[in-house]
């Protein structure tokens, strides 16, 4: 077990490609859920998503409800099997002999949004947390000890909270238990699917700080999914914006938040409520309802609500730019593609 408190980044013994190799690379992930009785139509939850997560960073994922964020989270752990596309973890292809799914699950863990249903109501907390290590081969006593240690790491006294049941804990406490549970198996990466969305604001702050601390302590990589832009800004190094199953923009957090490129990102950021009375806007930054994921618009999915939509926008899918440098800021929009024929060519 590697030391828990340290001064600088240590190379994890499971590391395979060195600090420059992305920890997780998703290429063209696709997941369509067939709709019963509609004659072959399907909900295109994730429709060709590609991105990379670097070691030690926090990648935020934002988007409206229904854009496919949660499905993406489950795809990354193969809790839902992708229809197409490939997933590489530290260079190895997931699902093959090099990296079977079980091994992946030892290195990647997930924290769900609903803290209550994430815990077995009939199991005491310490058993819930110890379940992961137990399943992965540790003996019961050892697993229990790991569980108790993890509970204290998240700020819950294991003697006080260990034998308790989920219904005796508050939302914030339960979510901390979920975090402890995720960390008990010593993963290298944690996927956080809206972990603070259901919590009160004050508790939210505590949990976010806890996540930051733990990330430093355990040398983790985070994929942080949220619909709350401020939370994402607080925690992330880079951010990925999703719309209707596709990636529309990826870039460093400050760059995306201060100079958003994609019209959707701009609308999203503009719609944040502000305490500043001077900052008023006359009309809503974005209009209309998100289209049906069963029947997404052709071409660029956003063109029906985009104020800059033109002829090429409903014909061809815009491609996400090539991500070359860690600081690259790429966008999937015809306005930034010289070859698209869009009249408004904007420049980064």
């Amino acid at each position, binding site marked *: 077990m590697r030391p828990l408190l340290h001064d600088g980044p240590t190379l994890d013994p499971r590391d395979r490609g060195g600090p420059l190799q992305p920890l997780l690379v998703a290429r063209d992930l696709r997941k369509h859920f067939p709709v019963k009785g509609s004659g072959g139509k399907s909900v295109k939850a994730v429709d060709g998503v590609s991105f990379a997560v670097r070691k030690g960073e926090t990648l935020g994922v934002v988007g409206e409800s229904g854009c496919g964020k949660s499905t993406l989270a*489950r795809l990354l*752990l193969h*809790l839902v099997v992708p229809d197409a596309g490939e997933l590489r973890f530290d260079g190895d292809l997931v699902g093959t002999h090099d990296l079977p799914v*079980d091994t992946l*699950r*030892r290195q990647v*863990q*997930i924290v*769900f949004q*609903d803290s*209550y*249903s*994430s*815990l*077995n*109501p*009939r*199991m*005491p907390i310490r058993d*819930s947390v110890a*379940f*992961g290590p137990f*399943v*992965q081969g540790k003996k019961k006593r050892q697993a229990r000890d790991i569980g108790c240690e993890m509970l204290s*790491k*998240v*700020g*819950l*006294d294991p003697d*006080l909270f260990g*034998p*308790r*049941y*989920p*219904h*005796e*804990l*508050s*939302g914030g*406490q*339960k979510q901390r238990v*979920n975090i402890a*549970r995720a960390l008990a*198996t010593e993963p290298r990466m944690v996927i956080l699917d809206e972990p603070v969305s259901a919590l009160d604001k004050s508790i939210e702050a*505590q949990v976010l*700080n*806890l996540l930051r*601390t733990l990330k430093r*302590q355990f040398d983790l990589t985070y994929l942080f999914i949220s619909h709350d832009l401020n939370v994402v800004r607080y925690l992330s190094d880079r951010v990925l914006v999703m719309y209707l199953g596709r990636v529309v923009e990826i870039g460093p957090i400050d760059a995306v938040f201060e100079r958003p490129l994609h019209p959707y990102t701009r609308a999203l950021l503009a719609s944040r409520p502000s305490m500043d009375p001077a900052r008023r806007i006359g009309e809503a930054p974005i209009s209309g309802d998100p289209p049906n994921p069963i029947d997404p618009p052709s071409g660029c999915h956003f063109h029906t609500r985009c104020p800059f939509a033109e002829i090429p926008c409903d014909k061809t899918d815009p491609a996400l730019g090539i991500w070359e440098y860690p600081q690259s800021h790429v966008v999937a929009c015809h306005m930034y593609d010289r070859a698209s024929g869009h009249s408004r060519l904007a420049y980064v």
Partner: protein
Amino acid sequence: MTDYFSVIPAKAGIQGGEPSKGALDPRFRAGDDVIFEAQALPATRVRGYWQTVFYRLRHDAMTLAFAAIVLLIILGAVFAPLLAPFDPYKESIVGRLKPFGWHDHPLGTDELGRDMLSRLLFGGRVSLLMGVVPVLIASLIGGMLGVIGGFAGGRTNTAIMRTMDVFYAFPSVLLAVAIAGAMGGGMANGMLALTLVFIPPMCRVAETATTQVRALDFIEAARASGARTLTIIRYHVLGNVLGPVFIYASSLVSVSILLASGLSFLGLGVRPPLPDWGLMLSTLRQSIYVVPFVCALPGLAIFITSICCNLVSDGLRAAMDVRM
């Protein structure tokens, strides 16, 4: 679906609800760079699910009273050889159909001169056996099928549940009578018939509960931890399914007793001269003009046993319906 002999099953499901608010315990924890100010902790002692159930039961006077009666009935049946004043098979030509209190027979005699009290006590053994055993076996088989179907989902589940639906298409009494009748009667066939009648509802209860559990996040979390299917079932599913299954099974016991004695009443269950309450009721029927109250006794025994089992089962359900 409920029909004649089925009791409304409790909402088979996982209990969940609001977290309890406890006394605010201002506490600062420094170190680890993590500072948490107030950890709200419930002021009560830790009590697990089963402890809560027992606590509730202990304080439920009515249920305890009826459970005591059931216990008495069971003890009466178990210790029948010691308690019975006469041999239940000993006939007497001259002492037939005698009323209460005739010559040391506190409950009279039947149509062959046998002592009613003794026959009732021994009859209890058969009736209780035929009440409990089919439910037990049906719970095991039906429960297993339900968990398998519920967890596997998809085609397997459809196949299992559709097969169960075919048996559900028969009214319970009809199915029991048909199977027992076709097989020729007798105690074993009767128990077999009842077991087959109870498997579909048990399967359905288990399947509903399993399907509900399966949809909850902690199952996915367990899968994400790397657990295999059997491990997940053992540690996460069974604990949550056992509750509803047990409650439903306990409510079936009274139904089973009624059905079993019904079968014997029709001549499809236990065969004479074995004492059984339903059979006794049937043979005594002709004699109601002679000693009506003696003839009604076996039915009274069935009624009391059945209603007490029913009430105990209701009490259990109330105790186990812990809003967690």
